[in-house]
């Protein structure tokens, strides 16, 4: 009779301790995660001299929009942002469209001689090619077709890296969807393609959202390929614009912070927009690999 409540009390105490640890961890994780972002934001509102204040100015004392003016009015960062946006959206659309179809095919159809497995593996393995490897041939390729310094060239190059990922994610997602739904649609009078369009695609929406945000992140942030392929503000993307403010003689921290902070905003906003799909879209997608 005595032992039972004792265990009860102990486990409740333990539960409380765990809960406390969890909440403390959440707070610490939030601080560690968000501080650098806060810091870049705070710096973007400081005068250069205050960025280097000792001790640091935790909150800007003389807030200024100077760097935003420099970056977005005087310098073509708006243009860079537009380029980044077009390239990211273009890449995402191409990758998600084709990747979804290929993922579906690999998840649903059978191919002779183990080709399904071979092709799946080959598609993933193309993602292993370090971008640095393909830059020279890509440069030659785009030069030959007079496509250097175009956004289309960037989209093509980024697609090479996003398509395997999109295919892989969507393949996993479709593998987890019950095949009967599409079969039902076919018996109900749809073609296989129709079943894919009307049944499989709507059900794969979380997977599509998760795949899309990953493609967006990767192509919005890409640096190396853009560094080589783009030349003028007609096609240069935000990361190149930002890197350009590290000059031989000076680094324009204020402008970099302003541009860097603004570069984060659209992606974060989009992430919040699709947040409910993010974990769900992956959960099915990733678990079965």
């Amino acid at each position: 009779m005595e032992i039972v409540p004792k265990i009860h009390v102990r486990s409740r105490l333990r539960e409380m301790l765990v809960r406390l640890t969890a909440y403390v961890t959440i707070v610490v994780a939030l601080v560690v995660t968000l501080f650098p972002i806060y810091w870049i934001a705070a710096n973007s509102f400081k005068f250069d001299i205050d960025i280097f204040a000792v001790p640091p100015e935790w909150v800007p004392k003389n807030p200024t929009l100077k760097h935003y003016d420099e970056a977005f009015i005087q310098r073509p960062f708006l243009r860079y942002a537009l380029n980044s946006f077009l390239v990211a959206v273009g890449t995402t659309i191409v990758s998600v469209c084709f990747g979804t179809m290929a993922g579906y095919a690999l998840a649903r159809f059978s191919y002779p001689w183990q080709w399904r497995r071979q092709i799946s593996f080959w598609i993933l393995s193309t993602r292993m090619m370090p971008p640095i490897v393909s830059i020279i041939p890509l440069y030659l390729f785009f030069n030959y077709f007079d496509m250097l310094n175009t956004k289309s060239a960037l989209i093509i190059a980024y697609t090479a890296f996003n398509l395997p990922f999109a295919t892989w994610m969507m393949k996993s997602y479709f593998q987890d969807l019950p095949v009967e739904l599409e079969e039902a649609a076919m018996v109900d009078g749809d073609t296989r393609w129709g079943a894919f369009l009307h049944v499989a695609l709507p059900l794969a929406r979380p997977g599509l959202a998760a795949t899309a945000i990953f493609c967006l992140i990767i192509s919005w942030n890409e640096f190396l390929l853009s560094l080589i392929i783009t030349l003028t503000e007609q096609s240069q993307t935000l990361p190149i614009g930002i890197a350009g403010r590290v000059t031989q003689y000076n680094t324009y921290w204020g402008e970099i912070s302003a541009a860097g902070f603004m570069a984060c905003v659209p992606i974060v906003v989009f992430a919040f927009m699709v947040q409910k799909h993010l974990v769900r879209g992956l959960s099915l997608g990733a678990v079965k690999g």
Partner: protein
Amino acid sequence: MLRKLFFTLAVATSVLALNGAAWADITILVPSGSEGDGLRAAAADYAKLKGTKVEAVQAPYANVFEQGANAGSTKSGVFDIILMDDPWIPFFAENGHLEDLTPFFKSAGMEGPDSDFLSKSLAICRNPYNAGPYVCLPYVGNAQMFFYDAAKFKEAGVDVPKTWDDVLKAGKTLTDGGGGRYFGYVFRGGQGNPVVADFMPIFWSYGADMFNADRTKVTIDTPEGAAAMKTFMALRDISPKGVESYNANEVGTALAAGTAASSINWPNWVATFEDPSQSKMVGKISYSPIPAGTKPGSSEIGHWTMGIMSASKNKQEAFDFMVWATSPEQIKISAERGNPPVRASVFTDPELTKQEKFRHYPVLMEAIQASTPRPRHPKWPEIENAFGIELSKAVAGTVTPEEALKNAQDAVSRITNIY
């Protein structure tokens, strides 16, 4: 859903198609810094004046060489003109990326660039150095200067630092009294270009050089080299922790924020030091030529020069633009935009020199005239990298200074095939 996707796809493609590359009449590759900004502004003026569309393509500084080399070695005609840092000239010239300017001067009825250009500025534009034909024209005249806080140096017992020993003496006093938050000297220790650029002037001040005069020997690991290295290490000891990763920016910021008393740096920083929104040391930083070692000090020249790419399809237009952009009037405008000039007439133009922000011009001109170029070699980037690694190791203390010199000697020998 997919219909919507396809619709978006169609719209996106057409937007992109509309945005295809539309090249200007002349395209210039420039670094995205003040020198690029200056040329960009000049290009806009030129377009207004002559109706020729000139576009300045800005690449991050760390990528300009790569962009140029890429275009050159693939015979891509994307750039007509490239604005080069002077140590790159041999690479571009000897690999056939640059056009010999002689025929253009001839057809324009000129012998070559006029004598208003500083002789040292012109010398680097010829390949081989000061002897061969012109392959480019100087545009931005940079040479390192020595910056110091005169008041602090006076406190430390040195009125005007004439030699590296003076710098060391004052610097040590200041660092010792700084309590780990103030330092007598600061330099660029970042691996690669930065550490090499800040070591070379000291190297030369002690009579050392990378090669002997007729290029039959690598002469890094010599008594002169060792003496320079000794001073360099002593300077390292009085510099802040972390100089191993410093570039011009950190060094300049340290002076502007008043946490270090002296450094070598590029003259562009004068404007920053004198800008109250960026500096706490307005009016307190003095300038001088590079201090002496056992030999008179020599500054490192760091010009930006314009050359015509061989693959260009608009060479004559490009040449016309270059001549226009380097004319005395334009160089003066460029100077007003913040890029040091390359012409004696501009350096001594009273309209400029009377202004506070150009008060370093006499010193700068002196520095350029007493400057030394980095060794002219088509493999300079590779040499600089190898030398930079060894210097970085020495600064970081992972090898002894002696080993660093010996390794550098070996590495440079291997790269250049000179033993």
